[in-house]
């Protein structure tokens, strides 16, 4: 009842781990698959060279969510093969997230992750906290189109484009990615935000500003998915603030084929994927549906 298919990839349930949550470590990804119950796992965004990321504090908890600025820390693509090998022992599809500072980097890293055996590539053109990487591309139709096109030339795997609501017109970006050959759209990444301490008068995050995630961004993410799903033909993966089965169902109704969960791990632990899946199943049963597919996009009709 919970199985879904995404670009030819079969998922045992529609919950995926979002990029950047526990995703630098193969051992953690495997645990999210085995004990957590995720239907698929997305790795941390990987780049060409090792990056230490931003100085601590890298996260600050606020009412309704989290502001984080890890700064794309990662060991670089050369060292990441081992982690993917371990992650695959989890027995669920592994999606390799890629970021870059230029088209060539995106393509080179994506090609290598394909060699390591990932099941799909997710292009991070959504991350807002590192100068000219990530969202730098996702803010522009032209650059988004170009990134997807260059990566599609080099890999045969399905390619997802992960978008940011920080873009002026996220629907236009989604269409540009679809035109360039993207196989799916993930929406959305964290939103630029900050927190200032009243006593010291200083921003708390080492990077001063960070990305807002968690329940407080859900209504924005839902609106994005709804608007994108109305305009594109490729599958949309919903992400942003999902912590319960009811949240996930809302995204399905808005047109998402699957959902990603990140910050929810903080509130409900690593087994959140099992819990949300169970809650989705209960909703489907109570309302007389026999599959997730039956409710995808109902709100759009």
């Amino acid at each position, binding site marked *: 009842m919970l199985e879904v298919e995404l670009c030819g990839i079969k998922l045992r349930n529609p919950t995926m781990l979002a990029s*950047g*949550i*526990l*995703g*630098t*470590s*193969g*051992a*953690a990804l*495997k*645990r999210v698959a085995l004990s957590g119950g995720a239907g698929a796992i997305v790795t*941390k965004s990987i780049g060409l060279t*090792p*990056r*230490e*990321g931003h*100085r*601590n*504090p*890298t*996260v*600050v*908890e*606020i*009412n309704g969510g*989290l502001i*984080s600025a*890890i700064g794309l*820390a*990662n*060991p*670089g693509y050369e*060292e990441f093969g081992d982690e993917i090998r*371990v992650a695959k022992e989890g027995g669920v599809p592994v999606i390799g997230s890629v970021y870059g500072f230029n088209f060539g980097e995106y393509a080179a890293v994506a090609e290598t992750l394909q060699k390591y055996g990932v099941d799909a590539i997710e292009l991070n053109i959504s991350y807002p906290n590192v100068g000219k990487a990530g969202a730098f591309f996702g803010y522009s139709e032209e650059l988004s189109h170009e990134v997807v096109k260059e990566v599609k030339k080099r890999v045969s795997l399905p390619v997802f484009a992960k978008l940011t609501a920080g873009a002026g017109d996220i629907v236009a970006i989604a269409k540009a990615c679809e035109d360039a050959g993207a196989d799916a759209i993930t929406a959305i990444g964290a939103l630029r935000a900050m927190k200032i*301490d009243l*006593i*010291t008068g*200083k921003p*708390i995050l*080492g990077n001063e500003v960070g990305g807002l995630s968690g329940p407080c961004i859900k209504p924005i993410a839902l609106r994005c998915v709804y608007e994108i799903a109305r305009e594109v033909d490729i599958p949309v993966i919903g992400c942003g603030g999902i912590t319960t089965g009811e949240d996930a169902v809302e995204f399905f109704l808005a047109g998402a084929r699957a959902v990603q969960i*990140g*910050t929810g*791990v*903080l509130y409900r632990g690593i087994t959140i994927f099992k819990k949300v899946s169970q809650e989705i199943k209960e909703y489907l049963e109570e309302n007389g549906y026999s599959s997730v597919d039956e409710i995808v996009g109902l709100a759009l009709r």
Partner: protein
Amino acid sequence: MHEMQVVKIKKIIKETKRIKTFILDLDVSAIPGQFVMVWLPGVDEKPMSVSYTKGDLGITVLRLGDFTRRLFELSPGDMLGIRGPMGRGFKVYGDKLLLVGGGVGVAPLAPLAEEALAEGKEVTAIIGAITKSELLFVDRIEKAGGRVLISTDDGSAGKKGFTTDVLRELLEEETFDQCFTCGPEIMMAKVLDITREKKIPTQASLHRYFKCGIGICGQCVLDGIGLRVCKEGPTFRDKELRKSPEFGRYWRNAAGQKIYFGGKK
């Protein structure tokens, strides 16, 4: 939710030439072995074990690099940001306890000793340091009624050598219900080897590079077992650690690259 609380430093105690205790204006009840994230505004934020777990929170810091050097420049009245206490503390079983602490690793063991002694348990602590003047919390544990055995690398106090040398000798004579250890990882790995032979269940408090401190970034995850040092740890059972090929061999830097202890692969 672990909101950042910015609090005043009430008191600073110079423990040794390179170790200071900071008592904060923050009332807590922590379990020994838990940690807090300590924010020095404008500088950085790092994990520190709670060394005073009841009443005013205390941390005990070894001066090492830039962050701790900046901490050492602070005076009472200055402010620090605190998230926590967080993580899993030590869990005490049995009545006859053995503690093995190296260097600043004694920080989480001292409150454990005090609490156990107050409950009428028997505590023996092996405390090691490079030299006599760097020994931490010997008086504190003795005052609470514990027995302390000492080792120093240079032989200026107690046995010349390592805590593990003292441990080996002690376990020829005596046995214990539980062992608790904190210190350099190579030392803890040896402690685990020795207590395994003697069938003494052991808990160790691990140190890994922390970023989020709340179990979501994945920076501190141990290979083999996938457990997060900041969430399922920092204290672990011996049987958990034996399943990790990483324990005693390597850690990961801020980029997530493996760094081998002692520089060898």
